[in-house]
């Protein structure tokens, strides 16, 4: 399926006079300043993760007894932890883990949730009934608790963390696809497709699914943020990504109890990193929701 978001159309409706992609981005940035700020944060975050190897001043796993609990300064910009590991380097390294978990869990959640929601909503009947009751059960547990149970039973590893976070994301994705599908399958353009003689599966994939894209993108950005947050929480509880990978959540958990007063930078900087990325993802999601919803676009 090759459906892309129809940006030129959205822009034309918004009254923008744009001929190049760059002009379009500038127009949107001016119209949605907060969204642009969110996109900027996410972009920096992604670049940091991709370029971690080249920009990090130290090896994030390198211990140095002399630098133990170093105060932020010229040698260690954001200080060092009790094992003398450079905080900045560990935050940069942690960005890789967070990005992997955020994207991995969201993509995995979408690729499982979309077909389930589409089948449930479009074909209905007993299939729908069974899927919905199963989703009810899954949704009765909060995301974090669900992820905790999953992580505990799968054991700590990067791959298992991604799976543990992705599975609890599935119900909300399936729900939103299903509810949109229910409304869309009654639309005259779906009837028109049927009148042409198109098969049901193809109608679901080509005519229904692309129209659920806008709410899905919004949901995906929000879930990207919460996946990162859940990973941090899991790692904080010792169930996330294991050593020696640097993880923002574990950086917090290792230092929160002991060093909060004596070396607050150990807690503050990873905390700021988590907050910023989640904040950025939410800002971007809000702007996308406005941008993709024709009713909110005057």
């Amino acid at each position, binding site marked *: 399926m090759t459906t892309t978001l129809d940006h030129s159309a959205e822009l034309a409706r918004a009254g923008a006079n744009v001929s190049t992609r760059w002009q379009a981005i500038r127009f949107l940035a001016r119209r949605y300043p907060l969204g642009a700020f969110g996109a900027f944060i996410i972009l920096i975050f992604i670049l940091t993760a991709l370029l971690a190897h080249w920009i990090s001043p130290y090896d994030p796993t390198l211990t140095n007894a002399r630098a133990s609990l170093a105060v932020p300064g010229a040698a260690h910009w954001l200080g060092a932890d009790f094992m003398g590991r450079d905080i900045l380097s560990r935050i940069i390294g942690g960005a890789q883990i967070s990005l992997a978990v955020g994207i991995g869990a969201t993509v995995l959640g979408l690729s499982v949730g979309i077909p389930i929601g589409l089948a449930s909503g479009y074909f209905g009947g007993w299939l729908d009934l069974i899927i919905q009751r199963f989703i009810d059960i899954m949704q009765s547990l909060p995301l974090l608790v669900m992820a905790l149970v999953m992580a505990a039973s799968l054991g700590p590893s990067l791959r298992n963390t991604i799976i543990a976070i992705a599975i609890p994301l599935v119900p909300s994705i399936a729900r939103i696809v299903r509810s949109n599908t229910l409304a869309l399958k009654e*639309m005259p*353009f779906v009837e028109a497709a049927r009148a*042409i*003689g198109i098969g049901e599966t193809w109608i679901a994939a080509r*005519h229904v699914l*692309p129209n659920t894209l806008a709410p899905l993108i919004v949901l995906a950005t929000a879930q990207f943020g919460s996946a990162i947050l859940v990973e941090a929480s899991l790692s904080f509880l010792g169930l996330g990504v294991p050593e020696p990978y640097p993880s923002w959540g574990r950086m917090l958990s290792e230092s929160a109890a002991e060093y909060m007063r004596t070396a607050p930078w150990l807690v503050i900087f990873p905390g700021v990193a988590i907050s910023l990325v989640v904040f950025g993802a939410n800002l971007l999601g809000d702007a996308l929701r406005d941008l993709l919803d024709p009713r909110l676009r005057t």
Partner: protein
Amino acid sequence: MAEAGQAAVRATRPPVLEIEGLKKHFPIKKGFLRRTHGHVLAVDGVSFTIGEGEALGLVGESGCGKSTVGRAILRLIEPTDGVIRIGGEDIRELSKRELKPFRRQMQIIFQDPYSSLNPRMSAGDIVGEPLSTHGIASGRKREEIVAKLFDRVGLSRAQMANFPHQFSGGQRQRIGIARALALNPKLIICDEPVSALDVSIQAQVINLLMDLQRDLGLSYLFISHNLSVVEHISQRIAVMYLGRIVEYADKTTIFTNPGHPYTEALLSAVPVPDPKIKRSKIVLQGDVPSPVKPPSGCHFHTRCPYAVDRCRSETPLLREIAPRQFVACHLR
């Protein structure tokens, strides 16, 4: 079958579509176990034929089942009973696959030009999709055919890459017409095709539909509540009330000499755009009854100014009261 008499109503030209005793009963489901508690008799035994190049107007008020008839003919909803013959062959019980070739012969145009086009497909793709689905053309060849269809319905070829919301209501309706024409059908079911359009745009679309009929020899089932539009476009007219046809005749007969009291009231209720004409109106009392529990006997007896006892107990059959004029009323 009680409707046997109705099957005798034939179009003047060889029929493209014949339906006999068409029924659609929607089950009403209630409660946890979704048990069926009665039925909505949306269409309750409807028969008519449409000849080649002919336009049959199907009129009635909301809830009378006229749109359900259109959808049941295309099997967009499954009819409960009856015969639907396309070019002489009954398609009511064909499987989806067997039905596919018949889809090339009949298409539909919808009321709402906004929701009848997929907002995420370009106008060219919308019009071209039927061609790919039936393996008629693809690639460059498809694009050529689509371009010709755009010319045909009065859209510019340059607009093929545009998306639906970049078009006005009237233009979107033209896209819907081009999509219906793509398969070169014999019959098009027009479901209130101009009701959602502004007055000045309505005329454009009506003219287009009439040009197409003349040039391509199309047949129309023209479903509408607007009697003026139906008068303008169709040759014969069927009037529906609560799931049944109450009168079925040539246009001139219906408008000059209506046979059924409901047709009479319907005609007299249409406001005429001429202040000099002051007609004595027949204003019907009360509302259209619910099709879940239609009145006994003649469905219309609750609102009919002439109703007698017999109307309350006995269902009137469609009878030929004058040559080629069929009316379901005891009093005629």
